[in-house]
């Protein structure tokens, strides 16, 4: 009995006393930017990379004196890829922390639910990684610099047609992953437009570890090219199993391939794969080289697309704040920032030159078609 009471009291106490409101702003001399993303869970790798990219940008900006004399502070908000939590995080950012802008969410699903909330609260929400269709449509406060798959895939298909001269291929879908299902449809459309037949479709589930059955089925189809539409983990596994069972055809990928972890896991099995990226890490441009060196030094790893796009996202938002000339978080000010952002053209980022066209929240920027050659990222010529 007593133990139970003590337990209950401890629990209640811990609830009352704990949880310092992480978002208490030293409002006067700081600019608060909220970052909602998945820092835990299976997509955590993407979210962590995004945060790291933001940190690098933040340090650079603050090191140069901040924006309009004030330093930036980035608030972390983990949603664990759960829409419910994402909604809570964003609501908290807006209501309690009174952030000036929000960067996120990481994934398409979580962005879809949070964008309307930010938009209604007249707060800019900028996603540097979600690639689903229509995320910014009819939401003037929502922007993104991640390449929508619908935009990037036709380039991949075109490049594949030229290089591999394929007439048909097999698509592998992760049937319980919204990103993959969406992407499969996009690929099908692009392939139809390019006159390439879809020989067959095979599916697997997120979290699967055994792909032997699927790959054996694939082998019997004798595919010319295989398209993978999932995240890096399962894609790497599929690649390994494919090569193990003797399937050596080229592989076309997607945004999921943009984390170097896939190379780490798949190793040689990934050789020759082709996919689209918003960032080319071996870009000789000095700006990119500097960025790569910074990330290498700080985190002991090479930056991936998420690092780069997040870095650019914060840089662009800072530019917008600078142009708007306001730092206090009020609806009028935030609207000024939004208006300033919408007019940005030819912004030089490490992931390409960004331009926002009127009425469109998706940044126009270059698509890099990458191929893995000799274990390194190279541009497909």
């Amino acid at each position, binding site marked *: 009995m007593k133990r139970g009471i003590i337990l209950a009291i401890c629990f209640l106490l811990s609830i009352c006393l704990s949880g310092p409101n992480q978002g208490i702003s030293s409002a006067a001399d700081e600019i608060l930017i909220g970052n909602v993303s998945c820092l835990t869970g299976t997509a955590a790798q993407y979210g962590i990379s995004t945060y790291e990219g933001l940190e690098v940008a933040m340090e650079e900006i603050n090191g140069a004196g901040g924006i309009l004399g004030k330093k930036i502070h980035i608030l972390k908000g983990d949603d664990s890829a759960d829409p419910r939590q994402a909604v809570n995080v964003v609501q908290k950012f807006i209501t309690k922390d009174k952030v000036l802008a929000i960067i996120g969410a990481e994934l398409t699903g979580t962005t879809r639910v949070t964008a309307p909330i930010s938009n209604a609260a007249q707060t800019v929400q900028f996603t540097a990684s979600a690639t689903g269709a229509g995320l910014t449509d009819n939401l003037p406060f929502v922007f993104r610099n991640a390449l929508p798959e619908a935009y990037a895939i036709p380039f991949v298909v075109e490049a594949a047609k030229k290089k591999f001269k394929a007439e048909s291929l097999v698509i592998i879908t992760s049937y319980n992953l919204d990103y993959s299902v969406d992407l499969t449809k996009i690929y099908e459309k692009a392939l139809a437009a390019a006159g390439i037949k879809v020989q067959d479709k095979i599916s697997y589930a997120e979290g699967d570890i055994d792909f032997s059955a*699927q790959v054996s089925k694939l082998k019997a189809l004798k595919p010319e090219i295989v398209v993978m539409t999932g995240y890096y983990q399962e894609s790497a596994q599929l690649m390994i199993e494919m090569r193990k*069972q003797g399937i050596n055809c080229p592989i076309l990928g997607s945004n999921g391939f943009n984390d170097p972890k896939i190379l780490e896991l798949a190793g040689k099995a990934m050789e020759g794969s082709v996919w689209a990226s918003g960032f080319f890490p071996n870009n000789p441009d000095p700006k990119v080289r500097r960025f790569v060196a910074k990330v290498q030094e700080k985190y002991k790893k090479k930056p991936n697309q998420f690092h780069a796009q997040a870095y650019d996202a914060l840089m662009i938002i800072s530019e917008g704040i600078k142009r708007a000339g306001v730092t206090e978080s009020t609806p009028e000010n935030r609207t000024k920032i939004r208006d300033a952002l919408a007019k940005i053209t030819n912004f030089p980022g490490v992931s390409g030159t960004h331009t926002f066209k009127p009425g469109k929240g998706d940044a126009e920027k270059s698509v890099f078609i990458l191929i893995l050659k000799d274990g390194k990222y190279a541009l497909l010529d």
Partner: protein
Amino acid sequence: MLAQQLVNGLTLGSTYALVALGFTLVFGILGMINFAHGEIFMLGAYIALLLVTMGGFSIFWALIGGMVGAALLGMIIERVSFRPLRNVSILAPLISTIGLSIFLRSLAQIIFGAESTRFPVSIKTEFFQLGPFQISLLQIVILAISFGLMAIFQAFIKKTKIGKAMRATSESLYTAGLLGIPVDRIILLSFAVASALGGVAGILLGLNFNAISPLMGKMVGLKGLTIIILGGMGNITGAMVGGLFLGFVEVLSVGYLTSSYRDAVAFALMFLVLLIRPTGLFGRVVR
């Protein structure tokens, strides 16, 4: 393709069988389910990984080490979730182990990262062609170890004194106690053996697919559960046959039907069995 799928099914099934054996041993003796068994499977693989990458041990010693580690983990779980709750209710250990499985999974995610880690393979990828069957050296090794362990386990349970004590305890805890069997120790030992088997299965799976992840125990654990219900809870032969059966069914459903229903297959089968013949296809050990 059929031949190849059969080989796939056999390899997968033997892994499932090992996991199911662990479940069934615990259930046979205590009448309870260790929901965290899937996590033991996963942690066994990680222990082996650490031994190989950080300790520089060969895969052979990593296997042994993984088994021992898993066994220890199982014993800890017994002391935390089963012994103190034995007389509380049938569901208390279930709930406790559900919590443990969540705990262990997040612990692994925090320590090892949420995504897959490469499992260093030290067995060459050589293929042998036996008629229409193409089987790799790796798969042969895995099958050898799995079936070898199952055979050893069968012998252990049937022939040794401890094995007999375990069977007596599973028949009736009370009577076994009266007969002078150190019931508490036997139960602890059962957990150790069950967990060791689960741990090995994890390592073998990691070997087979070159990668392990903190989440790999979740589905496998749940499927292990379905297997013992299919095969009869507490029934050792049932667990082994059930495991192989599920391996085949899953692989064939992927190969010939659509692969997006794969996970549902195991559970649909189990549901049906529960409705029609709750004691499983082979019946269960009488308590």
